[in-house]
């Protein structure tokens, strides 16, 4: 018998709304849906841990079930917990190990970025990975950039940030650090325009890929490291450009990993919430019309945080932006989920609705907050995907050019 603590499943009234909103259950019959895998099965698992279903592995942890639930059952959390508590996994999983260590792999890859990108896209390499690592052949990989964002920051921005009185700490996350330096640069531009100087602190991967691959202890270590590091930043505001990283920093740490993050929780915001607050307080920098038609896709974890409304609020204030708000659909990639051979078809199946909606909207760009959504959409549609911050930076850029 286990000590019973998280008993939110007791509130489930079996309305099955969560299963209606589950993107995986719609895409495949192999997953019986969040109601059955979560609150229903939890009672059985409490009775006998052997009654655990292998189908739990199909859950992407998108958390749309938790948004849908009228009874405040922590369905995705129950499933994640069960997945790693009851299902026995082999200790030797090289693919999952490297996939979840985004900072380790990223750190190595950025040293010889050109070579890495070349090798990883070789057909032979793809076949080998397909065969031996179970990474699907047709999956495209994000390109690695030369050097890290932290290195770039030290060289290029550290000095210029000192003139600002108000300080903001930027939790850049792995994607900005290894794959997308320009988003980091855009963020600094936008923060500067709002009158904030940007600092970086020591940080490790937020832990989302670790949780998704079952390395809960390692995730806890990383989380504690980040909590210590971010806790020491005085009263500076903390922002992040990744919706999933901010979700982990704000919500997964205290509830799923059971760690105390009260030292910074009041100061941390996902970037669009921060910008929205500044904008509505009257701190609006001069922007010029961007003249772009864009389709906005809302990532699952941002929805779970209730952050979509702020992104939309900010985007609406960007002049000259013709915004199509897409119906809320999961793109299917769910972090490392879509990079695994056994999930690839489901992952693509889940995304079909979204891809169709994007094609229909006929935009010039797609806008979204999440880095893995970006990969998925860029792979499956012909459009380039922008982060909301990049869009604002574009509006600012116009202004600078005008001055010149």
């Amino acid at each position, binding site marked *: 018998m286990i000590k019973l603590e998280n008993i939110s499943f007791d509130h*489930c009234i*079996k309305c099955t709304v969560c299963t209606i909103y589950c993107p995986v259950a719609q895409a495949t019959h192999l997953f019986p849906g969040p109601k059955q895998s979560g609150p229903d099965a939890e009672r059985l698992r409490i009775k*006998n841990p052997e009654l655990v279903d292998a189908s739990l592995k199909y859950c992407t942890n998108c958390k749309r079930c938790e948004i849908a639930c009228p009874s405040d059952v922590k369905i995705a959390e129950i499933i994640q917990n069960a997945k790693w508590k009851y299902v026995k996994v082999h200790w030797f999983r090289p693919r999952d190990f490297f996939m979840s260590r985004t900072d380790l792999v990223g750190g190595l890859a950025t040293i010889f970025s050109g070579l890495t990108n070349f090798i990883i896209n070789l057909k032979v390499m793809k076949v080998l990975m397909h065969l031996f690592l179970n990474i699907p052949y047709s999956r495209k990989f994000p390109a690695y950039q030369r050097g890290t964002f932290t290195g770039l920051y030290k060289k290029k921005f550290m000095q210029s940030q000192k003139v600002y009185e108000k300080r903001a700490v930027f939790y850049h996350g792995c994607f900005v650090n290894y794959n997308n330096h320009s988003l980091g640069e855009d963020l600094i531009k936008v923060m500067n325009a709002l009158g904030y100087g940007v600092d970086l602190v020591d940080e490790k991967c937020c832990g989302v890929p670790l949780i998704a691959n079952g390395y809960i202890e390692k995730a806890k270590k990383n989380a504690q490291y980040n909590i210590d590091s971010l806790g020491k930043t005085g009263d500076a505001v903390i922002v992040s450009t990744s919706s999933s990283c901010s979700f982990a920093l704000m919500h997964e740490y205290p509830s799923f990993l059971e760690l105390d993050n009260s030292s910074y929780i009041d100061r941390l915001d996902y970037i669009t919430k921060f910008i929205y607050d500044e904008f509505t307080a009257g701190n609006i920098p001069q922007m010029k019309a961007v003249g772009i038609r864009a389709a906005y896709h809302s990532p699952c974890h941002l929805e779970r945080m209730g952050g979509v409304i702020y992104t939309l609020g900010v985007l609406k204030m960007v002049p000259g932006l013709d915004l199509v708000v897409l119906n809320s659909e999961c793109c299917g990639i769910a972090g490392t989920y879509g990079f695994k051979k056994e999930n690839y078809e489901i992952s693509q199946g889940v995304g079909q609705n979204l891809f169709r909606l994007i094609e229909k909207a006929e935009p010039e760009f797609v806008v979204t907050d999440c880095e893995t959504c970006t990969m998925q959409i860029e792979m499956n549609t012909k459009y380039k995907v922008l982060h909301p911050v990049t869009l604002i930076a574009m509006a600012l850029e116009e202004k600078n050019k005008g001055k010149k």
Partner: protein
Amino acid sequence: MNRIETDVIIIGGGATGAGTARDLSMRGVRCVLIEKNDIASGTTGRNHGLLHSGARYAVKDHESAHECMRENKTLRKIAWHCIEDTGGLFVTLPEDDPGYHRLLLEGCRYAGIPAKEISIRKALQLEPNLNPGILSAMTVPDGTIDPFRLTASNMLDAKERGAIILTHTRVSAILKEGSKVSGVSCITKNGDAIEVMAPVIINAAGVWGQEVCAMAEIKLPMFPSKGSMLIIDYRINGVVVNRCRPPADGDIIVPGDTVSLIGTTSKEIPYDKIDDYTIDDDEIDILLSDGEKLIPNVKNTRALRAYCGVRPLVAVSGEAEGRNISRGIVLIDHKNRDGLDGFITISGGKLMTYRLMAEKTADLACKKLGVKKKCKTHKVPLPGSESRFSSGRTVKRFSGIPDSVVGSTFYRHGQRLRNIMTGEKKNYRLICECEMVTEGEIEYAIKKLDVKDLVDLRRRTRIGMGPCQGELCAYRGAGLFHEYGAATPEGSVELLHDFLEERWKGIRPVLWGDGLRESEFTYWIYQGLFGLSHVNNKKKKKG
């Protein structure tokens, strides 16, 4: 009129009746079992499903305690698929008399019950959800037993050995020839009359035995004592938790299948109220507040339903309280008592001693018939328990069907899982999502286990016994009755209506919090969406 000739008639389809039918069939005696409702629908199915170690009786009633322990060992052998070896604890709370602990240990030693004192830390390891403020703890070989499954597999075995089972059939008269009984006449659910002729009649109707005796013009006053229990949404404990004090209300929490039960109260009721099954608010208050003292989580958890059973105690002498009366076995040969030859009454006892009661009754019946065969029920395993399998190994053999479904079906039917689980599609279709009941299991129950309506089906499969109390499975189940030819389309709607009414009876006493929300939703589905009250109105007009 149908007429059946047989050797023995058994009236009452509880555990004792079913056990007697099995015992007699194993000795080659033909028998017919007549039950007015469904098997295990009376007192057998209305207890907390505890596989007693006997420790509860060890201080006051050594004989009962010893009987319990012996039957405990036997049942573990012959009916493992109805039993879960959870182990049991006796814990002393701060407000209890600390001296009772020692008394109980001694009593257990005397009665041959392996009770062992353990440290409080060890008790909390064994059952982490226990109140950490306990003063002392001991382990006893308690477990849980499912009375429905136990009765059903006794019945199945008897049937496979040639016995005839008539459920939903009411005995209307006992036929006599001089000072000997010759048979009974009875009426089925549809109103058909049947006459069953036999030289021996066994009255195993429990607390309803008084009525059966009255039909034979014999006075046998019963002493009805009501016990109420509360069902909690999920297993809040893995080990049976007993309170270490003299028997009183609300002193046990039993983990039964996917739920936990808080038991029991004891209340004397007049005989004409035995079919009412009402639970009073003060009983629920006692169960909740005392349950919380044993396991604090009780206060955060949804109560699913409350129910009560009536103990079949024969008032041999004029004792004052239900709890103090002996729960020993009462076997009456009415030839000696009332001069009516061939009529036997078996009553008293406990679910735990059903097999022993059946053995004694069958012995007497065989003596009357001149059959010399010995009882074998303590050696031959029940259907489902033929040979021992580990759950894990069995579950792995059915790859493709989710482990939770196979595991749950295996838990309910033991080895008879083979008759249910096949590669057919119906085994993938879940009907009851709370308790993992598939269409295949329902088909098996309807065809093989004497299921006549949805309430019967619940007793065989646990359909509708989960947190939603039939909200999502009742209408699917009703549809299947039609599909497998057990009801007409109109008939299946009526089955659905009756089932929901039966569920509602148990929900009503605990209607608050999440249970209330659940009921609102159920009401919305069945009334708002399906308009089910029309059925009721039609019925009333017909009536």
